């Protein structure tokens, strides 16, 4: 992939994309440091006439390593675990919601599954958004986590209630259970941050 590259532009674009995961106050400096290193190395290689496939691949590997550098900006590992779980649960909810929405809501024209599918997609998007907020430490992260967790709990409890029973118990455990866990872990983490 890196072999045919003629300018350091692609590396800088990767750094720009990864820098979005760095918390706001440190982002500019983090990006500047990485960009300066990449451009300096590129110019040096060019000057030494050693800009070949091997050196470009080496530079590419270094650029990819910047992702691990971003992770060290996350002070609490529990935050990282929450982000990973948020993405996983979002994918599971999104998959289930799409299935209900398309098959039963749109094709079979049933109102309840249609609404549940739509709300499910909203919850899926909220899980992803709150994951990004946790990673980037948005000021609104607490509000987002509370809204996401509460909505997920309500949606899944409503989904398993009779007479429609649109969801199974596994969906209840995943959706409502994780919603509750996320709320509790987030609050516990916030308290711990205040203490330390």
């Amino acid at each position, binding site marked *: 992939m890196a072999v045919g590259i003629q300018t350091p532009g692609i590396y800088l674009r990767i750094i720009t994309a990864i820098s979005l995961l760095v918390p706001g106050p440190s982002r500019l400096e983090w990006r*500047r440091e990485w960009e300066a*290193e990449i451009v300096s190395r590129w110019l040096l290689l060019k000057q030494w006439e050693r800009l070949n496939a091997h050196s470009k691949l080496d530079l590419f*590997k270094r*650029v*990819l390593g910047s992702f*691990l550098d971003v*992770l*060290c900006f996350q002070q609490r590992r529990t935050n990282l675990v929450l982000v990973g779980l948020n993405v996983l649960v979002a994918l599971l909810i999104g998959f289930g919601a799409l299935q209900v929405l398309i098959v039963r809501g749109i094709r079979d024209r049933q109102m309840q599954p249609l609404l549940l599918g739509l709300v499910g997609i909203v919850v899926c998007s909220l899980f992803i958004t709150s994951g990004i907020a946790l990673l980037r430490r948005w000021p609104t992260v607490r509000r987002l986590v509370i809204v996401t967790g509460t909505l997920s709990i309500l949606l899944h409890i409503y989904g398993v209630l009779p007479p429609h029973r649109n969801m199974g118990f596994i969906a209840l455990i995943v959706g409502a259970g994780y919603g509750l866990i996320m709320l509790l872990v987030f609050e516990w983490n916030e308290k711990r941050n205040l203490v330390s």
Partner: protein
Amino acid sequence: MTRKMNLSFAGAAILQALAHNYRYGFDIMDVTGLPSGTVYPALRRLEQAGLVLSKWEEEDTARKDQRPARKYYELTNGGRETLYEAVARYRRLGRAITKSAKGAKPSRA
């Protein structure tokens, strides 16, 4: 302020590179052979612990070399002390390994 920290092998290698005047992230990678995903997070931790200090080089210096200004790292006094301790520890470990290797009977195939 320097915070006491357990120095890993990578951390010791980075401090050693800094002590030998390899001051930029990419140069430290070259000399230690460590990947960027190890060097940069370790530099951040070392800086947080007060063993390393980071500064931006002068724009004029960078302009003279026709490149952007880079961030460089240097050892603090605390970092130098920690490095000496780590080097002494690794020397002791090396001696202990050599001693036990000499004392061990060669295995017969």
